């Protein structure tokens, strides 16, 4: 198994995480950083500590900005919310430092692996929302420019299609890939590797966090940590936060199932599949135990217009989007 462009990269630029996938021998390697940052007051001592510990940061306008994975720890220490360059799957127009922070995070991640001249990188972009025809042009063009500036040769791939490329080899890349991320749920139906339908819905992990935060009075960041650490779908909830998380998770899944049915019913020219097709769920929001079962139950309740053979969780839900982007980049060469 030797591909001409072993050095190509897959890049998942998600609302909550940025993940890079690389091919190493016959395996895939991943590296991820939180797509977040926190600003702390400047002091020489703090800067010295950060330098000594090798914590990624920048100094600007009398502030030290810690970005990536360490930002969460510092936010906890300072009892502050992290700031994020992206919201709802796209660059946040209201965050003045969004682009510079993504550049910093990517530079940190790329630093250990100096780019070869015009190395190919396939980066993920969300699909247009189902309800509105929002423009994704700015987001995609900006990331493309940023990667070009960093000496890469960028190509983009739809997030849902990346899931198909990562997980549905056994069905010749035919099936439905769903990425349940922080800002969006992205869906793509592909037929023999060709995307047929793709769309996104704006209810995903952040919606659950912020809704649960507003009901419980907790900070959204804290809700997210609780959700990632201990939430599971078993019908019994240890406390109020878990109970509220259950309510909003359910709401999110219902919205996704409804959107799936609506989009597939609305499409008159679906391919004539000669067998039931698989569906794969991926992304951090799909991680809680029982998520797949809950989704499956709600989908089976619908009269879904396409016969689905099975609904499975991605082998590695946090990395499958980046892996799909990498497989796409490698197959291009």
């Amino acid at each position, binding site marked *: 198994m030797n591909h001409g462009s072993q050095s190509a990269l897959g890049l998942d630029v998600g609302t909550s995480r940025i993940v890079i996938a690389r091919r190493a021998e016959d395996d895939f390697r991943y590296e991820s950083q939180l797509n977040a940052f926190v600003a702390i007051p400047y002091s020489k001592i703090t800067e010295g500590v950060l330098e000594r510990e090798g914590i990624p940061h920048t100094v600007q306008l009398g502030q030290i900005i810690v970005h990536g994975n360490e930002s969460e720890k510092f936010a906890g220490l300072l009892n502050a919310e992290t700031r994020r360059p992206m919201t709802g799957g796209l660059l946040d127009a209201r965050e003045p430092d969004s682009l510079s922070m993504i550049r910093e995070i990517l530079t940190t991640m790329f630093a250990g692996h100096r780019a070869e001249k015009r190395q190919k990188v396939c980066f993920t972009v969300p699909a247009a929302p189902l309800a509105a025809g929002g423009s994704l042009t700015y987001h995609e063009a900006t990331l493309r420019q940023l990667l070009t500036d960093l000496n890469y040769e960028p190509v983009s791939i739809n997030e849902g299609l990346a899931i198909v490329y990562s997980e549905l080899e056994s069905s010749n890349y035919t099936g439905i890939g769903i990425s349940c991320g922080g800002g969006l749920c992205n869906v793509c139906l592909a037929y*023999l*590797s060709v995307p047929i339908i793709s769309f996104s819905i704006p209810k995903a992990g952040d919606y659950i966090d912020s809704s649960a935060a507003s009901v419980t009075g907790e900070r959204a960041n804290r809700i997210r940590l609780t959700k990632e650490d201990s939430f599971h779908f078993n019908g019994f909830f240890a406390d109020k936060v878990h109970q509220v998380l259950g309510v909003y998770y359910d709401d999110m899944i219902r919205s996704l199932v409804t959107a799936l049915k609506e989009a597939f019913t609305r499409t008159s020219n679906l391919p004539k599949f000669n067998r039931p097709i698989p569906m794969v769920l991926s992304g951090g929001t799909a991680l809680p135990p029982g998520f797949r079962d809950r989704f499956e139950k709600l989908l089976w309740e619908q009269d879904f217009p396409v016969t*689905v053979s*099975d609904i499975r969780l991605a082998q590695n839900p946090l990395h499958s989007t980046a892996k799909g982007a990498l497989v796409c980049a490698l197959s291009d060469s």
Partner: protein
Amino acid sequence: MARSPILEPPEWVEMRAARIADPVERLGFLRRQMHETRERKARPARHWRGALLAAGLAAMMIIISLPAGTAETFARRGVVSAESSAPRVWLPRVWLVDKSDSSELYSNGLRIDLTFAVSNRPRSRFPIFSLAGGPKPQGEGRAPVGIVYHTTESNLAPFEEEENHRLQRLGRNLMEWVRQDRSYHYVIDRFGRVYRVVKESDAANHVGMSIWADSRGVYVNLNDSFLGVSFEGQTGAVDEVTPAQISAGNVLTEMLRSRYGIATENCVTHAQVSVNPQNMRIGEHTDWAGKFPFAGVGLPDNYSIPVASMFVFGFDYDSVFLRATGTRWRGLDLAELRVAREAAAEGLETRQYRAMLQHRYKDIASALKEKSGEVNQ
């Protein structure tokens, strides 16, 4: 929501892609082929005058050669369009019209009698093995992917009016026995009545040691992956099946293909899938080893499909089996040719290559046996 036009690539593309083991190479191959398909589709548009003329001539030819029948019968047979873009795989659309405790009625006229309906163990997820090789499954399935046709091999009375009483008694006894054994999902009696026995969501004990493959992969031991439909009859008997049974088999096949999106290539007979691992020969069971009315039940001649157990796992056949087939299947020749070609490509003698394939089967069969032992414990 973004939507792209549907492209239908040539049939061989999927088959060939399934044989590429490396995921990146497989994706690259498919993307190139789909790109070429798109290019090919775009090309004739430049010569629209010629294309229009050709389409007109083709339409005329089709109108002239259409068989006699009503619009409804054309639709039932799928002869609904002269367009060149008609789908390669025709899937009927059949829906449930009415349901009571004792029967179900479907839009294509199928009526299912539920008198003998019974549960069995729920259908398990079944492994799908790669066509390219390897002992481990490349994926799992959940919904039925095919139909295996059987005969009940039961006692038959002459199909004559004066035998009515005996015909009915034999049929009733047969149904009691099938229910007790959970032998099939459906039985079609000699009068063309369709009985559901084992629920479709459950596995029936119909097919045991068996193998089939499609472009998605290889299925081993098909009780969980294929539905069992049995015709009351006896292989080789004079009145093997009645016209009423064939007609009922047609509407039942239509309904099941519609419900599960089953490809025609996966509608096969027990003799085509049955194997004997003791002597590594096909046709442990020989029901419908020949003369299955494929055309009558709305299917192409699936005896022409290469026998999967032969080219995937190196199974062989003997003269007893050939006698049972009556007319030699084209699928036997194609499977043998495929084994010989692949052996040559590997630089091996056919005998050596077949032994290698058989070794793979034994690995898979013992792993499956171990797994089923774990489940049963």
